[in-house]
């Protein structure tokens, strides 16, 4: 889980062009939208692309988005629950 969260932070920085941040500056439970990192709706689309590209996960129900992308930890939990084994 810890390793996955570190991996996610690095990928989020790369995918969303957040070069002003380092992975250490993103808290595991920090909100990604609004108050926390201040991501926007385009970033949300990029996060969906990131899950598909790097983890092979398609989000079937868009209404789950706010819950999945609440924080790095919530994304990691979703990846662990949905990533195909092998």
């Amino acid at each position, binding site marked *: 889980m810890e390793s996955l969260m570190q991996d996610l932070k690095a990928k989020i920085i790369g995918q969303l062009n957040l070069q*002003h941040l380092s992975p250490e500056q993103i808290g595991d439970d920090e909100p990604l939208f609004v108050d926390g990192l201040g991501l926007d709706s385009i*970033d949300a*689309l990029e996060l969906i*692309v990131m899950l598909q*590209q790097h983890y092979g996960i398609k989000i079937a129900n868009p209404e789950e988005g706010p819950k999945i992308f609440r924080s790095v930890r919530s994304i990691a939990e979703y990846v662990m629950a949905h990533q195909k084994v092998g």
Partner: protein
Amino acid sequence: MNYITSWCRIRQNAVTANGQTVFEDRASGLPDFLTNTYRYLQIDYPKFYKMDRLCQLGFLAAEVMLRGRTLKEEYPPESVAVVLANRHSSLDTDVRYQESMSGIPSPALFVYTLPNIVIGEICIRHQIKGENTFFVQEQFDIPFLNDYTGQLLEQGAALAVIGGWVDVFQDQYEAFLYLAGQKQTPGSVIHNRQNVSALYGIVDAGS
């Protein structure tokens, strides 16, 4: 009578404002040059990193041109117009977006596949709410731009105008912006074709 009170030119890895060299970075390619300029200027605007190169170039030119002044304190936001032009439209990003379509197309790239987005980025940063227009031309048509911006000022459609040329395609790039308005400041020159040409060409205008 209207006056050009500030101008900025970015080309050949050098940033010039009001006739003075602000920053040079001869060794870098365009992406690094833009990022190094941003860091040199100590701007705190993380959205810069998300912009495409056309927007980064226009953003930096506006930033340097308006450095040390707050436009909204000089003119009502609704009275400031932005009129820009270039040769390559958003082709630099269009090509990269097309390439991304071989996999999963990038939404973040897609939002920059229009040339006038650079105007939007400048307006957001400087809280400008006036008329804006972006022209795509074969080459920088100074008489046309001067007449268009002059007409906006003379007819009262705007009290100030940011005009200029912001063009990027692959390794080719150039930005030239000027601020023209009713207010005269020390060092300002009259807004006319001759002075816009002089500032663009040799950065040594007379009034």
